[in-house]
């Protein structure tokens, strides 16, 4: 998080992490599509090759509060392919919250786990305790066959403390919820650490409801079969 007292700005960095081809960029594209134009920047994609992210995607969002404070939200994706590890570590620097985009397909269990281990390792190498990082997990690609069942995911989720979301990012389903969950848990953490309400009169509820309002009506998840 970055605080600029002079410009009365708070900048929050959120990173979409996950294995290659799990739909990180697709999440950002869906957010960009679903949001109303106000306070929404262009979706910037840095260096793509064959539709694969090489550096990162960046979507800037802005929320102007009644108190005259501006909340700037920067959404980043990391490149998922194994070889881009140093890029992932760089993008992860200064992250306030992470959304882990997992692939729901049963065959992708290992890829998800390897990427999550990679996330923990990179956080540690950046000097951050992984357990202290606000995190939400999204099980994406719910529309594909051979995906892990919702019951099973929820059973596994009950053993962890992170919020879990189900999504079909290509249709935009679950994308807004994931984002709202991410900014929510990130905000709670920043509030604990920086006392934003007390010190700056930043009202979490106002920011949240403004963002929620900017997303159109919720997109229904379409299930396979």
């Amino acid at each position, binding site marked *: 998080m*970055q605080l600029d007292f002079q410009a009365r700005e708070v*900048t929050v*960095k959120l990173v979409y992490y996950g294995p290659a081809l799990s739909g990180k960029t697709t999440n950002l594209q869906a957010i960009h599509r679903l949001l109303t134009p106000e*306070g929404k*920047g*262009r979706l*910037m994609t*840095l*260096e793509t090759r064959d539709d694969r992210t090489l*550096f*990162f995607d*960046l979507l*800037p969002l*802005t929320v102007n509060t009644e108190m005259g404070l*501006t909340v*700037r939200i*920067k959404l*980043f994706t990391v490149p998922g392919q194994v070889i881009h590890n*140093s*890029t992932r*570590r*760089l*993008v992860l*620097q*200064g992250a306030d919250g992470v959304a882990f985009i997992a692939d729901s397909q049963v065959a992708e269990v290992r890829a998800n786990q390897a990427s999550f281990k990679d996330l923990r390792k990179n956080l540690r190498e950046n000097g951050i305790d992984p357990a202290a990082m606000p995190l939400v997990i999204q099980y994406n690609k719910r529309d594909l066959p051979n995906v892990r069942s919702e019951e099973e995911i929820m059973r596994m989720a009950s053993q962890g403390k992170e919020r879990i979301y189900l999504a079909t990012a290509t249709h935009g389903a679950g994308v807004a919820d994931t984002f709202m969950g991410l900014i929510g848990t990130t905000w709670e953490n920043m509030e604990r650490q920086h006392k934003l309400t007390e010190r700056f009169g930043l009202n979490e509820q106002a920011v949240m409801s403004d963002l929620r309002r900017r997303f159109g009506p919720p997109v229904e998840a379409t299930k396979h079969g």
Partner: protein
Amino acid sequence: MDESKTADISYGEIANLEDLIDRDSLREVCRSFFDLFGLSIRVFSQRGSLLANVHEERSVCRYVNSLTKGRVACAETVAQAQMLVPEGGTTVTHNCFTGAVYHVVPIIYDERQLGRIVIGPFLPSETNEIPASLLHIDPQVEPARARLALAEMPRVRAQTAGRIATHLRGVLDLILFSGHRARLTSAMHLATVRENYRELSEKNTRLQDAYDKLKELDRLKSNFLATVSHELRTPLTSIIGYSEMLEAGIAGDLSPEQLGFVETIRTKGELLLQLISSLLDLNKLERGQLSISTEYVDPRAVLAEVKDTCLPEAEKKHIKLELSWHQDVPAVQADPVRLRQILINLVSNAVKFTPDSGRVDLSVKTTEMRVAQGDDDDDDAGGFGAALMMAPERAVEFCVKDTGIGIPEAEIAKIFDAFYQVDGSSTREYGGAGLGLSIARSLVEAHHGTIRVASELGQGTSFFVTLPEAQPDQA
């Protein structure tokens, strides 16, 4: 990397217009707008630096500036227009006493005001009359001249001016977006290279440590081998010596059976001693401690000696041992003892792996080889000075060719490794410690020569040892 670049990557933020814009491109864009709409355009950064300035002095401005008071008033108006910073993201209009106006349009990127565009002066289309402010700005103003000059000022409707501004802002926004992306990309490139370099450096350090440890282990192994070999040899010498004495009957006559047993003890003891000597040789070779005293050696003479030595062994298996050479084979610079050791090793190997009634051919001929000069060989790799450096020298090639079992292709690369046996099973047909070829290769290399092998499974194997011709100045 400076602080701002790191911040770029962390948040993808851009604070200054100057960082994003290529001034020449911006000037070109402004020039094309000027050509299209006939309106002067100036672009300022938020800090007030003029980044592009495409304008034409209007007739009325020229006329006003020719008057003393007019000049002062004009300078003031222009300065005010240029200093005006629009608030809240909306366009501000600044009026000139001539009736013309300036539009000051904010440049907003990523929800931040990074600068402003000053469009004008132009005359709003709605203006029909020459304003009193122009007539009264200077006592010397002549209304007729002023009217004529003002008529040349471009006339734009307020709505059109708004559209032009929006269009220019849109174009500028795209330029800024491209600039932003290019800047982030280059910052990412740099940061990634640095990060990779850091990572590789750490890995290199770890590898170097591991390498140093291995080298130390290797040294310990060599020392251990040297000590153990030595310790083994001492009692073995006694075993062989006493066996010889028993055989010679010094301790009394032995029955034929006893004699047979003692002979076995002695020959096995000698085999063991040979093995231990080989280990010591290898150890010395690996540590570069084996001394080689070279002299002119006639290859043919050495080959003949080798044949004599190996003949009994070959005859036991009814193997034909044939010798052939060219008359003009030059001398080599070699240690005769070691050269014999190399060749005997190859020949006894050939005999060992050739079935009964087979054939082993020994030959020597003149050939050419590339001799490594010094140890800066890496320079040759790129073909640098190849015409000179790749020139071969005259050399001598020994060949030991058998009709034995041959070596599988996959194994050929490994046969020179110490302790390697093609058939490594405990029930293998052919004995040996797997040291002979390793020692032979080390010895050949100590002579600046090469050793290679050609083999066909079931047909036979040929070993070639190539040594450079003796150089006169080395004598």
